[in-house]
């Protein structure tokens, strides 16, 4: 809303009056009315995506895979993924040009490819772009989890979606039904609906008095209101659909609260919840931040009592670098657990989830000590049914014209010269948005661009 433009010659007090019943306009999601277009998509198999964020980069000297192609050798940190070799693609050399030298703000554009200048507004994240087309099929458009700090998901208006943290709180809306029963929930939704109606009536009346300059903004506002309306109606309609059945074993495993001193249990339980949500088709899109850039949790069970951020600024300290490597490996082990669960679990159609689920694991930073935002650590997994061909190390560094090879010492270990590659992209055209575009397209989003993409990654 813009109350400031000169051409808007209506009484300023209209705006104040509206504030009383002002609607918080959160996620921009699907514009497709409930069940419209269901005919052509009902028979299509569901497609799913998950995004997992590891803050502060990795200890790149122990993470980087230096061999290429099909016969690549797993690095020390990525070793836990070796058993999934045929269904994963480690990717090197991508970056977001908009986040270079923007330090920890990289988490804000990891899934958006947006810009971070003082006057820039963030853009829609790829998971929400996907939710635009999957939301019509599921009870929830998307799932946002962050163990600490904020979620990874952003609306088209550049507003960040709130994150859930506690496992029981994630479980409840998906599988336990509304608090206070369906009738109470419906009453609340209908009340919200009538607030929307009132606002719309008022706004339409104002629209007649408005100049063309304001109409654009008003359109944007109306779009948001209409989306809120659709969402409310959709939630109302879903109330009559029975909740998915969850076995007692599954419920016991995930419907509980875990202290963040139990990092492994916590990570795995969120993964279990994501698997359960995909399995029962409650949602098809999920983002999971293992912790924000400032407050990614310690892992006492493997002797790490420092925050991840602190470890990442290791200053060359051997002990810190070893701990950071162990942390990376630990987080990758839990991701490996997620992939195993996805491959073992079948969806409502009876097919293994992993084939229809693309999972992207990675960070917006590679070398934390100096905030290097290039050569991002990324692993794309799953989605073979959607046409992804895995099994190689996809290395955009090697595709760069001037790339001299990785900086190795006599024993074949990476030297600190490698850090330069993590700060300045070897391949200035290899954008992470190109990979996000590939994922969006495979999800069925009809688009040729995403964020600042300049082509699409071939895989």
């Amino acid at each position, binding site marked *: 809303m813009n*109350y*400031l433009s000169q051409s808007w010659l209506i009484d*300023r*007090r209209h705006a*104040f009056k509206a*504030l*009383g019943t002002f609607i918080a306009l959160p996620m921009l999601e699907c514009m497709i009315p409930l069940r419209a277009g269901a005919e052509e998509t009902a028979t299509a198999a569901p497609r799913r995506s998950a995004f997992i964020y590891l803050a502060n980069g990795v200890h790149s000297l122990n993470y980087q895979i230096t061999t290429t192609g099909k016969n690549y050798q797993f690095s020390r940190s990525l070793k836990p993924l070796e058993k999934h070799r045929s269904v994963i693609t480690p990717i090197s050399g991508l970056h977001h*040009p908009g986040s*270079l*030298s*923007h330090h920890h703000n990289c988490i804000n554009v990891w899934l958006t490819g947006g810009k*971070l*200048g*003082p*006057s820039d507004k963030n853009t829609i994240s790829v998971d929400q772009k996907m939710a635009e087309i999957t939301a019509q099929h599921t009870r929830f458009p998307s799932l946002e989890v962050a163990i600490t700090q904020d979620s990874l998901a952003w609306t088209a208006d550049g507003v960040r979606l709130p994150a859930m943290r506690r496992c029981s709180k994630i479980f409840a809306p998906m599988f336990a039904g509304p608090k206070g029963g369906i009738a109470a929930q419906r009453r609340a939704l209908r009340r919200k609906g009538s607030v929307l109606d009132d606002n719309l009536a008022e706004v339409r009346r104002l629209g007649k008095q408005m100049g063309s300059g304001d109409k654009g903004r008003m359109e944007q506002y109306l779009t948001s209101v209409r989306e809120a309306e659709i969402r409310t109606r959709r939630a109302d309609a879903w109330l009559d659909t029975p909740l998915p059945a969850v076995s007692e074993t599954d419920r016991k495993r995930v419907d509980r609260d875990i202290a963040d001193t139990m990092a492994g249990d916590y990570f795995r339980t969120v993964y279990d919840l994501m698997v359960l949500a995909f399995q029962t088709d409650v949602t098809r899109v999920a983002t999971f931040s293992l912790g924000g850039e*400032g*407050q990614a949790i310690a892992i006492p069970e493997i002797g790490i009592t*420092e*925050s991840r*951020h*602190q470890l990442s*600024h*290791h*200053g*060359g*300290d*051997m002990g810190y670098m070893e701990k950071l490597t162990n942390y990376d490996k630990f987080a990758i082990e839990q991701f490996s657990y997620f992939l195993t669960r996805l491959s073992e679990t079948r969806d409502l159609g009876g097919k293994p989830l992993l084939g229809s689920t693309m999972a992207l694991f990675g960070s917006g930073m590679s*070398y934390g*000590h*100096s905030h*290097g935002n290039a050569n991002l650590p990324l692993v794309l997994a799953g989605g073979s049914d959607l046409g992804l061909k895995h099994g190689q190390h996809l290395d955009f560094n090697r595709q760069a014209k001037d790339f001299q090879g990785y900086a190795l010492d006599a024993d074949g270990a990476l030297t*600190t010269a490698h*850090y*330069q590659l*993590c*700060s*300045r992209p070897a391949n200035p055209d290899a954008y992470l948005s190109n990979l996000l575009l590939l994922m969006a397209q495979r999800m069925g989003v009809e688009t040729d661009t995403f964020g600042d993409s300049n082509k699409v990654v071939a895989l």
Partner: protein
Amino acid sequence: MPDNALFAAAKAGTLNGGGLKKEVERMLADSRINRFIDDFSRQWLQLHRVGMFPPDKKLYPGYDRWLEMSLRAEPVEFFREMLVKNLPMDGFIDSDWTMANSRLCDFYGLPEPATSGFQRVALQPGDHRGGLLTMGASLGLTSDGTRHRPVHRGVWLSEVILGKTPPPPPANVPAIEPNPPTSAKASLRDKLEAHRSDANCAACHARIDPLGLAWENYDAIGQWRTRENVAAGTGENPLVNPAGLMPDGRAFKDANEFKRLLIGDRDKFVQAFIEHLCTYGLRRVLTVDDQEDLKAIEAEAKQNNYGVRNIVQAVALSNLMRKR
């Protein structure tokens, strides 16, 4: 939402001239002004950043949640006092008092206050405090959990006190490789200066860094120190060096002299404060078209000896706000 009295005044057509002034007076005296005080000071001073990178428990064992909440409240209470008492703007830069509770008095090494809650306490020169810039919140909100960050302090000061956002670093900055732990202990300042050898970097950093290096006597959570604790390396912890040159070449030897130079440039930070107030009130960035109106507010501020309350009043009554 305007209250009934304000609606009534508007209906009666008295919301101009003396009538408008009276209403602004009334609103400044109303308890609801506290919403403005809490909200504006938080946004202006970027207090949401306090505790964003929680200080390491081993390095800062005294840091706890109560301290963090107290630290975050101090500048807000300070602003409240400045506004309510209509104190001159210089107080934001330096003062012989602050607003503290018992936790902060303990943290700053001040005598235990007689009553609980925030209250005005006197500061001596030896306390090394006074004004916004040497508060724990301002010094700590740019830190990263383990160490202070002079460059970030400089950027914060530039944005908050001088109203200027330095340009972001270029995208092609080479990575900083870690120092081998066997070398002699080096202060962060020494390391920074070593990395500033690149002329392209130095051009911008010469303008930013001094604004942050003046506070080298304060650690990552704002505690006074004369030596910097360096974890890696051999030898003694290095002495801190808070001296520097202002971008215009004037020298300062420590935080106190730096504050004095800032006060000498009063117009600059008063102007920045007015801009922050207007941006807050108008909810938009200011443009060149606003300059004339801003100048008028500045002139009035000067006439009123830079009283904070007078400035807020002048902004509320300004052309800018009335044609919003």
